[in-house]
């Protein structure tokens, strides 16, 4: 559900920064540990832009893999969920990657 709000936010930022030009491709980063589903976001983007000046503009979603650092032993591990268990047994993890939710750049014509 919140993906629609995020899609509208991307559309607003893209329109604002295009300064009258036509955005053809917007590249965003979505961390795999955020509660944002790329498939739902892609669908919401279609719905949010269809029939508008952004109609046909491609949304390029770059997935960022999750990574945590153990607060007990400082070693790093890959994460597919926003929690996990370090080899030392520690579960108090600092998320160092995978929470990204940002617009990188776009192409305009």
């Amino acid at each position: 559900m919140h993906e629609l709000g995020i899609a509208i936010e991307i559309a607003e930022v893209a329109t604002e920064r295009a300064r009258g030009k036509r955005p053809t491709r917007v590249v965003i980063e979505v961390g795999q540990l955020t509660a944002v589903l790329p498939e739902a976001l892609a669908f919401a983007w279609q719905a949010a832009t269809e029939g508008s000046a952004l109609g046909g503009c491609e949304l390029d979603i770059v997935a960022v893999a999750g990574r945590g650092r153990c607060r007990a032993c400082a070693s790093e591990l890959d994460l597919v969920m926003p929690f996990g268990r370090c080899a030392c047994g520690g579960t108090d993890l600092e998320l160092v990657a995978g929470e990204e939710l940002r617009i990188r750049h776009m192409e305009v014509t």
Partner: protein
Amino acid sequence: MCATCGCSTDNDHAHRHERPFQPAYVPAELKQVSIERDLLARNDVIAGRNRAWLTARDATAFNMVSSPGAGKTTLLERTIRELANGRELLVIEGDQATSRDAERIRAAGARAYQVNTGTGCHLDAQMVATALAALEPARGALVLVENVGNLVCPALFDLGERAKVLLASVTEGDDKPLKYPHMFRAAELVLLSKIDLAPYVPFDRGRFAAAVAEVNPRARILQLSALTGEGMPAWYGWLTDRGGAS
């Protein structure tokens, strides 16, 4: 074989390849515009303003989250009736529709502002800003924000609260923390509610505590029943300590 066009002639022959390549569609000049902007930036800026606005009034907000039916409103009603720490207690109610919860809060004796999010599944910082402006909390007030019942979306949206408080009831599964890790990770306090029903449901409190610890080892867990009042004093203690001057 001719190396230029691949025809079977061995001899040199004329080629008409000088015609320039003409694509059907000529793209106009593509320009890349760097943006590098957080997608939640707009919400986070407003949340920061809410936090500063509250701090300037020595007021504190807590963001109460849970799945629908975990008992947020019942907990708030009892808290309004019983908490006596000399601070005004206000409630911002978030629901997709109706003002039933705000009416319940007012009947319990607190001022309340109802936000209807329509199809929206969470409160955002702007909704809370509007509610705060309308409520005008007194100096030192405690503002309890009852978010829309949903264990996914509200995890993403900072409202300007000091902490998120998550309610989970024993009528839900004890594996909820593993199924909704984003929200459990975002919470500072987990309230296990409806413990008066614990004898009648197969909820394993030990397994629940282990699941919370796995997802969020820093979270504190308190157990209570807003119906019988069991465990409520510890909640009031937390609210008073954590809601104090920062």
